[in-house]
């Protein structure tokens, strides 16, 4: 966690040195208010207020932006309208605006959410707080440095099927469905954001892959054609043991992947098998003779 990041309140929402509302109240002298309103607001016109964290690695605070509200909007629409009118340089990531790319992750009222899939009319009334994912270092405003995740991805040994001529692989639908659940992942990294092992202990980042990559391992482990055995790698270098199954990751996953039940718990069972039960381990080795040994896989990730 960088120093610049405000601490969350117990309720999970951001506090900041000053909220926009407070600044406006204090700022009767009129110098540099941090609250933006469009022209003279009409009496009855319904409005929406976004309380957005603005800043960079050196610090920042929450700023209120109020706009007329529009029917059916998602939070990302409001951010776009703010950019087009009140704050052209407000930084946020997005690509698809359809919940498919996982770019627009942020925390809305303290909860990790996709801005493009969160409808304004489904949030409680009052200002909507939009803050960056707090586990990753701030780049600017709502944009964080998620490179940690890309580094972990580089450490995952590649998929390794037995050789076959094009079109000769056979897999049953039921068998591919297990892996397909995990391959729905849009890499929004919100599960990584919410996992306390990463969030609360900067040091863990070196030895902990996090839920997004546990499902990647699970997917490879359950792939009907994969020949690698990654269990030792998972235990030793990916820190599977540090996860204490709080299920926070599953709760935030926009793809509704059952990260803990379907990936982490089965992986933990397999790893336990691999390290403590020599008989089961031997049995597996014989049954899965075509798999590379865990030491091999750990030594030569491909």
């Amino acid at each position, binding site marked *: 966690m960088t120093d610049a990041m405000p601490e969350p309140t117990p309720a999970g929402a951001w506090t900041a040195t000053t909220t926009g509302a407070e600044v406006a109240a204090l700022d009767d002298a009129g110098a540099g208010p941090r609250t933006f309103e469009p022209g003279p607001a009409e009496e009855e016109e319904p409005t929406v207020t976004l309380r957005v964290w603005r800043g*960079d690695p050196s610090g920042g605070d929450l700023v209120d932006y109020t706009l007329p509200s*529009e*029917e*059916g*909007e*998602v939070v990302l*629409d409001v951010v776009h309208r703010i*950019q*087009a*009118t009140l704050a*052209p*340089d407000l*930084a*946020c*990531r*997005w*690509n*698809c*605006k*359809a*919940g*498919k*790319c*996982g*770019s627009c992750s942020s925390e809305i009222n303290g909860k990790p959410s996709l801005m493009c*899939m969160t*409808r304004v009319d489904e949030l409680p009334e009052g200002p909507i707080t939009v803050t960056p994912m707090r586990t990753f270092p701030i*780049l*600017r*405003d709502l*944009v964080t*440095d*998620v490179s940690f995740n*890309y580094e972990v*991805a*580089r450490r*995952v*040994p*590649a*998929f390794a*099927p037995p050789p076959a001529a*094009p*079109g000769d*692989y*056979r*897999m*049953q*639908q039921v068998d*591919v469905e297990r*892996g*397909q659940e995990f*391959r*729905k*992942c*849009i*890499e929004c990294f919100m599960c990584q954001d919410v996992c306390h092992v990463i969030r609360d202990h900067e040091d863990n980042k070196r030895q902990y892959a996090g839920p997004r990559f546990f499902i990647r391992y699970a997917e*490879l482990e359950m*792939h009907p054609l*994969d020949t690698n055995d990654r269990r030792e790698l998972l235990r030793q270098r990916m820190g599977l043991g540090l996860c204490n199954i709080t299920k926070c990751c599953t709760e935030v996953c926009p793809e509704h992947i059952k990260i803990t039940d379907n990936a982490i718990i089965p992986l933990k069972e397999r790893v336990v098998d691999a390290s403590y039960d020599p008989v089961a381990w031997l049995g597996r080795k014989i049954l899965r003779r075509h798999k590379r040994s865990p030491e091999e896989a750990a030594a030569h990730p*491909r």
Partner: protein
Amino acid sequence: MAEHETHRYDVIVIGAGGAGLRAAIEAKARGLSTALVCKSLLGKAHTVMAEGGVAAAMGNVYPEDNWQVHFRDTMRGGKYLNSWRMAQLHAQEAPDRVYELEAWGALFDRTSDGRITQRDFGGHRYARLAHVGDRTGLELIRTLQQKAVSSDIDVFMECKILRLLHDDSGTVSGAVGYWRPSGEAVVFEAKAVVLATGSIGRCYTYTSNSWESTGDGHAMALWAGADVIEMECVQFHPTGMVWPLSVRGLLVTEGVRGDGGALKNSEGRRFMFDYIPEMFREETADTEEEADAWYEDHANNRRTPDLLPRDEVARAINSEVKAGRGSPHGGVFLDIASRRSPEYIRRRLPSMYHQFMELAGVDITAEAMEVGPTCHYMMGGVRVDPESQAATVPGLFAAGEVAGGMHGANRLGGNSLSDLLVFGRRAGAGASDFAEGRDQPPSADPSQVDAVLADALAPFGRDGGENPYDIHHDLQSTMQSLVGIIRTGSELEEALDKLGELRERTAKMSVAGGRAYNPAWNLATDLPSMLTVSTAITQGALARKESRGGHTRDDFPAPDPELGKLNFVQRQTSERGDGAPIHIGPEPLSEMPAELRELLEEGH
């Protein structure tokens, strides 16, 4: 020279969608030092949104299928404006490219005997689209991304390329751009450059495309002196969401119709039966009974008109709405709820189910969707050699949506993902061959670099100018209203004037704040591409005085057989760089060999 960092590679690939990833994997596998550059984070490119599937004549569901039929469908769909050689290579190589993805870890949906299953899509004679539910693009991009990462390709994410660089002889030798997070300048020196920058959709108000689709590659190719072709051919997908406004344009996959959904007007009539064109009459069902029976039995029934090629369906919807038979929010109805069970719908179309539930509050298993045309795909693009994907300027290659020729006047659904794989690989190989024939990447010319950076940074130096968002907004409405799905000469002329005015406005726009992750500035650097591309689209549309595929002229409603033998080629002849006039002229299509011509003439 302005401050910047410099990187040297044999091959740089600009764009990390399906085409760019596949090209980079190929160059790296050939042992060349390879860089992959993209505007967003890796794995977020527009390809991730593709839903329905990848077309390949594997014959897993219909053994009668083969490359010849796929070739024929592609040419017919493209109204014969396609590069026949690209369509042939594509049809021949697509199955191997799909199987290759499987060997790299992709998990496609299966047939009961464990093969990759295939689904029906518009314009394809047989069920031909390999898919993963309705998130095929995600599977494709993730598989390629993981392959690229395990191949140790250097990836430059959130790095926007502004212009290509060239050496004294005019050979492309690198590119200059900036890191979005810091705004700092980057120069690449390379022996060969592959453009894989995707689409142009952001030139229009209603589009299914992501923000990255600003036509940068199309524009950079023009600025580098390369030819582009068929720029008038823009595909409007018939089924985009129309309500709420916030999601207007978002795609509703053709898979809905492939899986049984039917289009209806406000009177409940399945109006597509009224719009079957002569060219497709023989193979299209003319009664609802036959159309519905076709889903189960393709051999004894003709296909439903709901699955005519996209240009036909988009125009039909447009006409229904114009005739006052549209839905409350200006579209038509797409009904699968009354035709398939809720379980079937949720299993086959999970993302569609969620998209409507979460964004429109509509349960598609219980009620009809409202849909209307949305700007979806750019058929036109960089003119390339079919074998190597080489552009007409040495050192430059192009693949995927930025390349032209493969799809003619209209692309069939599913033919893009396969295009990315087939020609991404070929571009990677073509660029590698070229790079191997070159000693060193020449050093970047400081005066070129300085000029590009000065241009890009200019808006920071101006005060009180216009905001780039306003200019973008006006550009989009100009293209939407004057160069949209139905075009006419006078409106196209008007559009050219307006584009000229918009260009003058960009010369005066200003941006406040710093260079680090500043979206206003990022947009300001996208605007020159969008203006160049919009101009080329409009010029092409004016020149093609006929209606063909995605290009419809109200003042020339019929196809003209003579124009069907021509490509309109555009090129900057006088000088390189932004702002120079773009010359346009017709060039004959190359002669198709007799054995391929016969395939087109066969009834089936």
